[in-house]
């Protein structure tokens, strides 16, 4: 039973990730491979603050969101000038930098050894530690994120995001400050990823840099693409599928060394198949369009 809860908790965490990345890449069309970096920032901030300062979990999470948001703005600002492929490269660079810092700033992050013993959140004197408690806890945040994002994409704000994806110059000619929206959506997405990172750190209680690599970022982008860009339910479905499918490999009795590589092959293959045969993803933008 706990195994099942474990999978569900991971799905909830990844829903937060994929919904937030969908805002950036699916709605605004800014393809980013830096999402794992923001996720990592959230995780490291809560871990380091809790262990070194002992501040409360809510404060720590907000600090993580702020740092991710500020860094998100910093990499979004050059996007005033760069577009498309160049933007992807800029986010790639940022991802590599963040990973290197986590891996090499040993005095702060303990480098590749990782940070063990992260304190779990305490709400009204109850420590969130069991699987059931975490299931409710992460589920609450996943729901909150989803509702927040849904309100955003269904508003005139969301319409401007789609306009940026479809035709930036047209949006500009209609008087929309495209640059401002790009920065805003990046900041929002980045701070949501930090929430997911915090949840991960609390749940696993151990983090190391290998959870926040560029491969992880690409995996996150695969969830969004396979689930369906421009559709929040697509991100929910994508997270559920891409977390569950590799678990099935476990039951095939593969040695874990092979299973890990098989996962990578599986994601790659899925991505290629979807790009070829269903570029809009499982649930495309218009999956629920009445005709």
């Amino acid at each position, binding site marked *: 039973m706990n195994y099942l809860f474990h999978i569900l908790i991971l799905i909830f965490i990844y829903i937060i990730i994929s919904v937030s990345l969908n805002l950036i890449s699916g709605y605004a069309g800014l393809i980013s491979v830096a999402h794992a970096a923001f996720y990592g920032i959230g995780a490291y901030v809560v871990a380091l603050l809790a262990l070194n300062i002992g501040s409360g979990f809510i404060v720590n999470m907000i600090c993580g969101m702020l740092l991710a948001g500020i860094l998100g703005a910093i990499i979004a600002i050059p996007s005033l000038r760069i577009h498309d492929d160049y933007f992807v490269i800029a986010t790639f660079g940022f991802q590599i930098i963040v990973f290197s810092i986590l891996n090499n700033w040993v005095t702060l992050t303990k480098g590749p050894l990782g940070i063990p013993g992260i304190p779990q959140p305490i709400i009204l004197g109850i420590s969130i530690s069991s699987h059931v408690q975490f299931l409710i806890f992460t589920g609450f945040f996943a729901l909150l994120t989803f509702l927040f994002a849904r309100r955003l994409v269904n508003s005139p704000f969301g319409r401007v995001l789609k*306009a940026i994806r*479809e035709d930036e110059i047209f949006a500009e*000619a209609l008087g929309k400050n495209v640059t401002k929206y790009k920065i805003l959506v990046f900041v929002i997405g980045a701070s949501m990823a930090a929430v997911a990172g915090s949840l991960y750190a609390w749940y696993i209680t151990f983090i190391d840099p290998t959870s926040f690599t560029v491969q992880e970022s690409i995996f996150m982008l695969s969830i969004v693409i396979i689930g369906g860009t421009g559709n929040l339910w697509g991100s929910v479905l994508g997270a559920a599928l891409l977390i569950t499918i590799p678990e099935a490999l476990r039951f095939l009795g593969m040695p874990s060394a092979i299973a890990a590589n098989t996962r990578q092959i599986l994601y790659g293959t899925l991505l290629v198949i979807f790009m070829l045969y269903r570029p809009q993803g499982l649930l495309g933008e*218009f999956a629920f369009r009445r005709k």
Partner: protein
Amino acid sequence: MSVVLEGKKLYKNFDGIKAVDDFSFSIEENRIVSLIGPNGSGKTTLFNIITGFLEPDGGEVLFKGKPVLDEPPHKIANLGIGRTFQNLRLLQKVSVLDNVLLAFKNQSGEKLFGVYFGLKNRNEQGKNKEKALSFLEFVGLSEKAEDLAENLSYGQQKLLTLACCLAMDAELLLLDEPVAGLSPVMIGKMFGMIKDLQKQGKTIFFIEHNLKVVMEISDKVIVIDEGKKIAEGEPSIIKEDSKVIEAYLD
């Protein structure tokens, strides 16, 4: 008659080619003014300069007496200059109605605060939707409101961009070849609308390279060739101008 838009001594070079060369012009309020010239004569370049998409090498543009060239395109648009593009720009994978709704200025729901805490937001969106439908009705697309823009014909897409300009509530409309590629019936319809817009108080400045087409509708014609203004005046005068005839016989 007050001048809405004024350009003074505008210059623009592209790798030594003078796209716009010492070009000055003025557009009076509530007039239909056409900018004509052969292909590659600098018409669209001039529009791009006015709307802030292109920085000129020299000169000034004044909108209602205020210089606008230091402003980014979205600010210029918000001052009240709407434009359409020659190579149609639209949100293809978005509904016709949403294309028009996007164009409304200062929507509270476009600000983050408004999205989550704006009390006026819903009310305002309802009003905008009503207005948007009336603009679609004006251009004859109300039945297509829920279709994706990519499913419209070329002519219908041009009408949609016009509806977007209306939703922007722009006083001055810069239309880049609004009738190019349209059937004679559609051209008549488009010109009818442009005249209606004039009656509603709008000022229209539009590009066309077919001399005959613009004569019946324009109050004033400006002729550009190789980046220079070669003639300006009422259509009947322009028709007799020897420089214009020369440019068109080349």
